[in-house]
């Protein structure tokens, strides 16, 4: 598939400042103008990270994540891939990665620019998996970093693993999601074992202008857009401030 072709569907186009991006059902974001694929929080080797501490979680997560990443790359054919940090679950992750997975990753990387932004989990990463490592990077009007920074605009970040519960016909549905208000976009975690954190939680407090917040829930084959009013839930921070929320329809 070539760049500007039928990826776009009404539900998953995301505008950030003046840039058009596409929220993909894989959990990645596609920036057609720059032919760049952006993924957040791959958390490679999370299973083995748990195993190291005695919980023998199945060791197939890295392969599963790579498989989905390969599909996203095949669908978009990017010239550049940006990983928004926490590519590995811990600093020893690269050392534990199997030869097969390492080779699979190298094959994905070949022929394109590959940027690893450092995250809190893998800031001290040992072992080399190729590509460029940076703290953050700006391309045009957009800034790419791991942890969103309060007050920033034109920012694309990860770290928070956004998820939202929305009201539908017969109850509620919770999914990982993209969360954005036109000035900032936070990507869902891409890793097979990466959980979700409710966008109503305190970690998200102050990041979005509530009235303009939309969430893009990841469905099986497409992304579903919901306005802030559809989001269910209320978490209260220890300070006691209930999160500001739009009225319920």
């Amino acid at each position, binding site marked *: 598939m070539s760049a500007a072709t039928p990826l776009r569907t009404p539900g998953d186009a995301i505008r950030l400042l003046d840039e058009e991006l596409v929220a993909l059902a894989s959990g990645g974001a596609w920036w057609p103008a720059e032919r760049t694929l952006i993924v957040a929080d791959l958390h490679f080797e999370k299973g083995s990270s748990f195993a190291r501490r005695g919980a023998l*979680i199945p060791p197939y997560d890295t392969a599963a994540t790579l498989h989905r990443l390969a599909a996203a790359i095949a669908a978009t054919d990017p010239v550049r891939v940006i990983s928004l940090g926490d590519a590995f679950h811990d600093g020893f992750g690269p050392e534990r990665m*199997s030869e097969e997975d390492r080779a699979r990753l190298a094959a994905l990387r070949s022929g394109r620019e590959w940027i690893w932004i450092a995250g809190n989990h893998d800031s001290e990463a040992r072992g080399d998996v190729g590509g460029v490592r940076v703290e953050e990077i700006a391309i045009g009007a957009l800034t790419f970093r791991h942890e969103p920074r309060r007050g920033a605009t034109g920012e694309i970040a990860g770290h928070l693993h956004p998820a939202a519960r929305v009201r539908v016909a017969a109850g509620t549905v919770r999914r990982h999601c993209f969360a954005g208000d036109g000035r900032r976009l936070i990507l869902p975690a891409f890793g097979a074992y990466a959980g979700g954190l409710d966008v109503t939680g305190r970690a998200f407090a102050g990041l979005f202008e509530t009235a303009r917040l939309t969430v893009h829930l990841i469905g099986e084959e497409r992304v579903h857009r919901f306005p802030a009013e559809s989001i269910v*839930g209320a*978490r209260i921070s220890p300070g006691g401030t209930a999160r500001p929320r739009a009225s319920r329809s």
Partner: protein
Amino acid sequence: MLARARAGRATLLIAPTGAGKTLAGFLPSLVELADPAKRPKMSLTARGVRRKGIHTLYVSPLKALAVDVARNLEQPIAEMGLAISVETRTGDTPAHKRQRQKYDPPDILMTTPEQVALLVASPEALDLFGSLKRVVFDELHSLVTSKRGDLLALGLARLRRLAPDLVAVGLSATVKDPNELAAWLVAQNPGAARAEAEIVTAPAGAPPEIRILEPADPEGWRIPWAGHLAVHAMPAVLAAIETAKTAIVFVNTRAQAELVFQELWRINEKNLRIALHHGSLDVAQRRRVEAAMAAGGGPGGLDAVVATSTLDLGIDWGDVDLVIHVGAPKGASRLAQRIGRANHRLDEPSRALLVPANRFEVLECEAAIEANSAGAQDTPPIRSGALDVLAQHVLGRAVAAPFDDDDLYEEVISSLPYRDLTRASFDRVVDFVATGGYALRSYERYARIRRTKDGTWRVANPQVAQTWRLNVGTIVEMPMLKVRLVSKLSGPVARMGGRILGEMEEYFFETLTSGDTFLFGGEVLRFVGIRENEALVARAAGKDPRIPSYWGGKFPLSTHLAERVRGLLADPASWKALPGQVREWLDLQRLHSRLPRPGELMVETFPRGGRWYMVAYAFEGRLAHQTLGMLLTRRMERLGLRPLGFVCNDYALGVWAASDLGAAFARRRPSLDELFDEDMLGDDLEAWLDDSALLKRTFRNCAIIAGLVERRHPGKEKSGRQMTIATDLVWDVLRTHQPDHVLIEATRADAAAGLLDIRRLADMLARVKAHIAHERLPRISPLAVPIMLEIGRESVPGSAEEAMLREAAEDLLAEATGR
């Protein structure tokens, strides 16, 4: 009993409650312990300390029951002046006392299955149990039908190795297959005929007097078409309470308990003392209610308690002389057990009043009364042992001492639930315990148990043992939040320090928005928000909670009762016993459609409000219907019938669609036989199951029991939230990469056996093959009214989620774009 005990034979004592069976179980122990010659001798332990071990172990499914039985036993011991020590040991026993019990155990120890698992895995196991003479299992019928029973069976097999002369005694209510229970008590020798304990059956008491509540005059209240709350009947329930010394009002769910309790108090002008008892309420609150129940109808006592299954078992309260059952009984044995909670004198009948909440429940109540007078039982059969439980036990054996796998295998298959376990399955479980059992052998260096040079398996490090001890047991609770009452919000700050009212499932609160109101502890509460592991609530002004919070009946209709309900429907001659309104309803059905005949599956189709409906009267219980609904709608989707949703209750399944279903079936495109073909249980089932929330929940339980992931421990969640891993994600990865993994096998076995009632569904589909009758109607039939009223009350689980997500998103989009 005594004679059998002297002969050293295992015994199963079957008796109704109130027959003094618990004390009977101890009599031989007391006789032996009173004889100094027969008391266990002090002996030198492995550590060189002289001490005696436990003589009799008593195991109860309930902590409170163990405590009460200990109290009841201490009295005769004191009266007879015997020097016999009796102690309890439960999760509530202080650590110092538990520690002391290990080096100075009592003669008789009263405990729970979880404590048995911990004790047999302790290094002192041989000292404690080497001289054990008897083990008494109380309420055995309720223990053996769950994974708790599997763990206990493995514990018993271990105890038999530690004390080869051990005699096991089971105390049970009446069950369908007592021989099975009798076999559970004794060592099995695979390959040989099943060994069984002797069975002693106490004579049955007077038959109970059971009545169905109906309007005193035909112009009285109308019996509702649907719903589970029986609000219409509360004045009559209150009047019945007045006639009793103390009544127990049994309901099926916590939400029902809340609503019934609220409604009774709303009309309780005489201020009858009515209390509430269910599993979510604060423990202290529950203990207060139990103490008041013990005081009976006198001062400081109670006139009635509204209760869920938390009061199904437990000590007998002498003053309870009436059981009121609100809602359907669901099973003949279950009803018998509940009715037995009233009146414990054998020569007098127990009194019970059944209060059906809707018309189908009237039929079910009538069927239950017939079953009761016929003495029919429908307790479930004993399960075959779960592999996740075995994994927990295997690690426990390594925690106790290094084990030899040949030896352990022999021990395990001597227990009834694991009698047919193959060596290959056992070895897979051991492999799972050691390194996770993955085809990708990358976790050898993280092994939890390792085989040593002498061939035995031992734990790799002390943390493994510690983690195991913290996670023992098979009861996995849903993630819960404490419910804390805060005073009104002053500004944006919710004041701290309010009272804890109890706890409720986290997922319930996750679906609420601040300001939503719901019932809890008999009050209407307003949801404020979630803070860490607490749900903050405030008192709400209004009387009507906005969120109905109805959690569907936990117990599906038993196959036996379903059979009787079908029989009742098909035989108009038997309707005489039914209330007039219900007879009229069935007569109308005969007029406008027809009644389901024995042996057939009747399917009605009709249009309504621009949609087309199909109602199948399968009578297989809500769980089986839910599975059927999911599979049918998938198939209908594929056939282009455009199903939009489905709904089910215990009796029927309703599907609605955007195409004319009746016309399609009439043209045999597809025929109903094709639509209901058993082959839906193949690929479709697999595909749906793998994605179903129920299966993911089952996997979570298996993963916790097997020790793959840790339980959430109170107090640790705060920091631990980010450290945990969502088992749903693990499920998705594991089923794709190693679909034959032992935990996936365990999960599927659970789903097939219980949670999804797949076996029951399969039996039904096979039975009705070529006996599916289609009634194409111009409009809704009288029999379909109840299920149609369920639409919108119950959520549709599983794969429909994706469709709803799409629909909701598109609606909003259309709205937003003005299309």
